[in-house]
């Protein structure tokens, strides 16, 4: 069914705003890293977004497809279990005249690019451009479309409503699972495969604080991300759940409430622990609130959106510290906690707090099924694929390159040439 022209136009405008979320993340990743890898960070974000988009157009949408279009299905207990799309490569056969499938393909291009930018935060300052590009190609062409098909393309998770009477089926209106948790789990795989940065852990096993070089980038990135996230939540809700554009106001309010309450809680926690609110961790809290709100923004009451954000904001500083101190995970931008943990929390919260129209009970069971699929299928898949790619194209930069900074080593020039010449960086240790 083709939506009303005005709905299609609104949806198209929202899709066109999604790159602001990417811009926000790219600025944050760059600001949270050291100045000697700042240009490399932004360059990698641009390249990775482009490659993921190309991979998605070439074959990604064919695997993702859209509800009602061709797909492969298994039959079990008399029901169809639709597991992967069977559309045509290169977006062939799609009408870009405002049809839902055409708009979903456009949405998917940007969503794949955004998901591919998430792991860059975990691999900052040591992930080679070639490795990041290879990883993004697989994410945009295979991993993201697979889960997006399950959740949004009429796949088995989306069918849990009609098939098993579990609520409306797995609900993820803005991509808390399909984009954020998937990106966060990939970030975890990347952080493990790359290992910690040189000098992160001292000989007596204590992690060193490696502060970012530009807090203004990080905080401005948060503001850009808010616009992108609101667009993401709005477009996904209209396209995949038939939400009326009139609810865009509520979606925007809930997105902001999620981010704002999460930031506030993170700022309070860091103030209680370090006597002053930590700007970088608070920025991470803000993004975690946006991420958590993505699962069900149009179906949350504002008070519930506040609660979702509060829990996300409390989880982030705890998880970041735990990962770094106890588990030895060096994640410079906190991508695993911000996108992975908060994304999974958002999915669960959708089952607990959201009120879906005409829904059957037991929505929380459908949400748990989605979380189980992410942890049980998508995470091993993304880890395995990246492990193999790392064997073929070594992901980690040479020690000398890490010492010099990736700007000079991989791009041949520093982001801040007037400040170039970090004498301590060139001393052979």
């Amino acid at each position, binding site marked *: 069914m083709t939506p009303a022209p005005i709905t299609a136009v609104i949806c198209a405008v929202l899709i066109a705003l999604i790159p602001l979320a990417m811009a926000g993340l790219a600025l944050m990743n760059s600001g949270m890293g050291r100045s000697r890898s700042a240009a490399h960070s932004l360059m990698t974000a641009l390249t990775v977004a482009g490659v993921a988009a190309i991979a998605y157009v070439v074959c990604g949408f064919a695997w993702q497809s859209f509800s009602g279009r061709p797909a492969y299905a298994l039959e079990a*207990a008399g029901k169809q279990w639709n597991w992967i799309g069977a559309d045509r490569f290169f977006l062939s056969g799609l009408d870009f005249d405002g049809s839902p499938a055409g708009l979903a393909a456009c949405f998917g291009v940007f969503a794949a690019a955004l998901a591919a930018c998430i792991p860059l935060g975990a691999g900052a300052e040591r992930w080679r451009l070639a490795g990041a590009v290879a990883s993004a190609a697989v994410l945009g062409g295979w991993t993201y479309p697979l889960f997006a098909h399950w959740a949004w393309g009429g796949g088995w998770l989306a069918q849990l409503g009609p098939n098993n009477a579990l609520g409306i089926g797995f609900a993820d209106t803005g991509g808390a699972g399909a984009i954020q948790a998937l990106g966060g789990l990939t970030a975890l795989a990347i952080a493990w495969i790359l290992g910690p940065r040189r000098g992160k*852990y001292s000989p007596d096993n204590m992690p060193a604080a490696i502060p970012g070089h530009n807090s203004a980038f990080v905080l401005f990135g948060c503001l850009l991300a808010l616009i992108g996230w609101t667009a993401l939540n709005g477009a996904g809700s209209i396209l995949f759940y038939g939400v009326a554009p009139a609810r865009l106001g509520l979606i925007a309010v809930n997105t902001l409430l999620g981010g704002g309450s999460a930031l506030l809680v993170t700022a309070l926690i860091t103030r209680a622990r370090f006597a002053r609110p930590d700007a970088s961790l608070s920025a991470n809290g803000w993004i975690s609130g946006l991420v958590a709100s993505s699962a069900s923004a149009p179906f949350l009451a504002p008070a519930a959106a506040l609660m979702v954000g509060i829990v996300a904001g409390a989880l982030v500083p705890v998880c970041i510290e735990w990962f770094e101190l106890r588990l030895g995970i060096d994640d410079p931008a906190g991508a695993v906690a911000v996108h992975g943990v908060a994304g999974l929390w958002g999915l669960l919260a959708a089952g607990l707090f959201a009120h879906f129209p005409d829904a059957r009970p037991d929505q929380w069971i459908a949400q748990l*099924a989605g979380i*189980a*699929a992410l942890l*049980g299928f998508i995470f091993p898949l993304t880890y395995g694929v990246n492990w193999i790619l790392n064997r073929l194209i070594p992901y980690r930069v040479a020690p000398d390159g890490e010492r010099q900074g990736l700007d000079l080593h991989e791009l041949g020039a520093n982001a801040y040439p007037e400040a170039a010449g970090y004498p301590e960086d060139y001393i052979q240790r």
Partner: protein
Amino acid sequence: MKLAGFLLLVAGGAIAAIAIAILAAKPVMTGFLLAGIGVELIGLTLVFRSHIPPKLKNQAPKREKEGQA
């Protein structure tokens, strides 16, 4: 330990998916789904533990001893 962890993750996912596919009674299906997630959590714990650098693994007992002293 890493491989065992990943195998448990996949096994947990399979338990959850198969339970949803073949079990009709909701309480039983929910029980198996939760069991599948439990298996996944055990797998995740193993994977996390297998990736902890050896230095950090030895650190915890050392700190405890220091605390006792």
